[in-house]
């Protein structure tokens, strides 16, 4: 008798718990903040247009929305969304390497936002690949094993994208557990982090370079100034500073937008973090520049330099590598944050230029009819970016991404320590002492 009541009590408890959980989820689904803002209106218009265009694309074929041709099978959906987008998302593997492998605790406050950004970038930009695939219903073929094209670089890239998304999700999952208040699961997921990080860095090394290796067989089609056997290495090295520049650039925006969310400690350490990242960027960019020069000299390509493509090549490596790396160096030296942000922006433009050069501009440079993306291709790309931003905002406003994790999830009681905060010039000078 007593036993039965006990069971019943348990069940009632479970039901109330479940009810509470569902109502929590429902309340979290609701938008926080004002619904009608300029950005939201803009986003709604862009997404609605994208939806319409995608319906046209999937009912009429790729020709209805894109300017792709038999000569140019890959346009900006590959060249920008995937090839450039994935380089921009490289920050996640670099920052997790710094924090979990090198254990540079200084960068801990930006791990979550960077991993979230990286994860969403992969989901959305690699996901946008489905729009580009002519026969997307067959996309599972290389996964389920009925036809493994194992000699294909694309096979490697596809698998690595998928596995890396899983690894990134695992890296990010403790934040979800904290949001939902799942303490035991949070502990378990936290234990998976290092494994996921190491696996993720390995996968990133291979698919960042793999995106470059996709173009290796196009030797007779890519301008000699951009084609080299070293494309995979160049792509990998440039993904390091591309990713970090994105972290800097994106951080400067989210710092304004999510001001309320940002934890005090993060706020205080932000400048130091940015300067540190800029230093790493500068270092890898010097290596990249050196590699570029080495490849150029070994390729014996002097005769191409004084041609229109040669000038464009110089614009890329001087204007978008040498100048930003010089700016980074100077900015780090004088702790000039606006200059760091400017250098980051310039670097990002340089990455776009480089990736588009390899995939589109220097590709069939001899062709008379060039590929120029249609407005619809650009619009759909914009739609993908906007959708990503909306999801990012939704997550950041709910989960402990920029804000501190809940009390129960903090790693350990911090040793009391002093942090000094030097405000920017012009602001009221004051010293802040925090006991944590």
């Amino acid at each position: 008798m007593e036993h039965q009541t006990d069971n019943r009590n348990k069940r009632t408890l479970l039901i109330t718990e479940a009810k509470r959980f569902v109502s929590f989820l429902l309340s979290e689904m609701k938008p926080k903040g004002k619904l009608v803002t300029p950005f939201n209106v803009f986003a709604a218009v862009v997404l609605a247009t994208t939806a319409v265009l995608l319906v046209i694309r999937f009912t009429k074929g790729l020709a209805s929305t894109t300017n792709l041709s038999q000569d140019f099978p890959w346009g900006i959906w590959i060249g920008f969304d995937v090839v450039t987008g994935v380089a921009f998302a490289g920050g996640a593997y670099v920052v997790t390497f710094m924090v979990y492998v090198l254990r540079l605790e200084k960068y801990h406050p930006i791990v979550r936002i960077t991993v979230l950004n990286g994860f969403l970038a992969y989901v959305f930009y690699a996901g946008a690949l489905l729009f580009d695939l002519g026969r997307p219903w067959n996309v599972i073929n290389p996964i389920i094993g009925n036809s493994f094209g194992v000699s294909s670089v694309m096979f490697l890239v596809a698998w690595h994208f998928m596995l890396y998304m899983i690894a990134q999700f695992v890296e990010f999952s403790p934040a979800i557990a904290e949001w939902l208040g799942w303490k035991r699961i949070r502990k378990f997921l936290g234990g998976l982090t290092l494994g996921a990080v190491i696996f993720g860095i390995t996968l990133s090394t291979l698919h960042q370079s793999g995106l470059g290796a996709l173009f290796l067989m196009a030797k007779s089609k890519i301008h000699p100034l951009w084609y080299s056997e070293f494309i995979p290495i160049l792509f990998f090295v440039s993904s390091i500073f591309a990713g970090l520049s994105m972290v800097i650039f994106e951080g400067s925006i989210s710092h304004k937008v999510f001001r309320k969310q940002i934890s005090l400690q993060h706020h205080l350490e932000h400048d130091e973090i940015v300067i540190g990242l800029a230093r790493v960027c500068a270092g890898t960019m010097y290596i990249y520049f050196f590699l570029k020069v080495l490849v150029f000299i070994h390729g014996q390509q002097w005769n191409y330099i004084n041609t229109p493509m040669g000038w464009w090549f110089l614009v890329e490596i001087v204007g978008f590598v040498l100048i930003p790396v010089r700016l980074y160096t100077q900015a780090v030296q004088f702790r000039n944050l606006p200059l760091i942000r400017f250098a980051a922006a310039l670097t990002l433009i340089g990455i776009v230029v480089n990736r588009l050069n390899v995939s589109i501009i220097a590709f069939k440079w001899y062709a008379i009819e060039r590929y120029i993306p249609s407005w619809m291709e650009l619009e759909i790309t914009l739609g993908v970016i906007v959708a990503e931003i909306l999801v990012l905002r939704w997550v950041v406003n709910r989960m402990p991404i920029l804000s501190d994790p809940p009390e129960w999830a903090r790693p350990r009681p911090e040793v009391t320590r002093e942090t000094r905060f030097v405000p920017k010039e012009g602001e009221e000078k004051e010293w802040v002492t925090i006991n944590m």
Partner: protein
Amino acid sequence: MANRCTPKLEEPMDRRNFVKTLSGMGVAALGAERAEAEDKSEKKEFVGVLVDTTRCVGCRSCELACAEAHGFPEPDSSPEVFAKERAPSTVQWSVVNRFQTERGEMFAKRQCMHCNQPACASACLTKAMLKTEEGPVIWREDKCMGCRFCMLSCPFDVPKFEYDSPMPKIQKCNLCWDRLEEGKRPACVEACPAEAIKFGKRRELIETGRALIAKEPTKYVHDIYGESEAGGTSYMYLASVPFGQLGFRTDLETIPYPELSKDYLYAVPVVLTLWPAFLLALSNATKKESDQENHGTPDGQ
């Protein structure tokens, strides 16, 4: 809190991570397992086609026969089509072009070259594009996901994609694969009234070509296009003028195109196995004493 779980959890956690990393590696290592470009020429002898452009009169019977054999609309028969150089298209697998050369008007048909080690087939992640043991390179509808990597990789720009269809296919010559299975010759070969197109074993065709060149050394250029281009192709050409004048690319590699990404694919298993070990070691080396006491693996903060 962290203190409590450490001694019990740390060990199995590390082991689990390690096993997980390993098993993941196994899956991904498939990417490079058979990086070696597929060369099936040893198993069975490849068939091929030898086109003697000096005999071609530009009648375009081959175009018509091709369209009939594969159910495409009849090609435009007016001579105006020669006004500009055409490439094969989604509705025409084989086209004849006219060229003004140093020896006057010449014609050359253009279609898939059926490479010995095709870039398109090694680019294909679903094996939709397949080099058959007999030699023809065929495309399989149920496998293809439409990524167009084959088009990017093909040095001859042969595969064509149906951009205007919601269920697009890749279109390219399959060397009449279905007819070959029935024991027939390719449609274009049968249709040629000038006997400019010969079908046979690739090896024998090379011998035939060389013999023809040796017999009439002033008539032919001393080269068979396709013998070594892109590592050798099943379609091969004889000509009386340098091949560049007949619209052929003469700057192609003489190694098979899959070789170009082979080095990269070979590096994959090396990185895949050494990187995690190196990273794990590095992570352990940087572990501070306080970390070891407090929490073995870093949390996800």
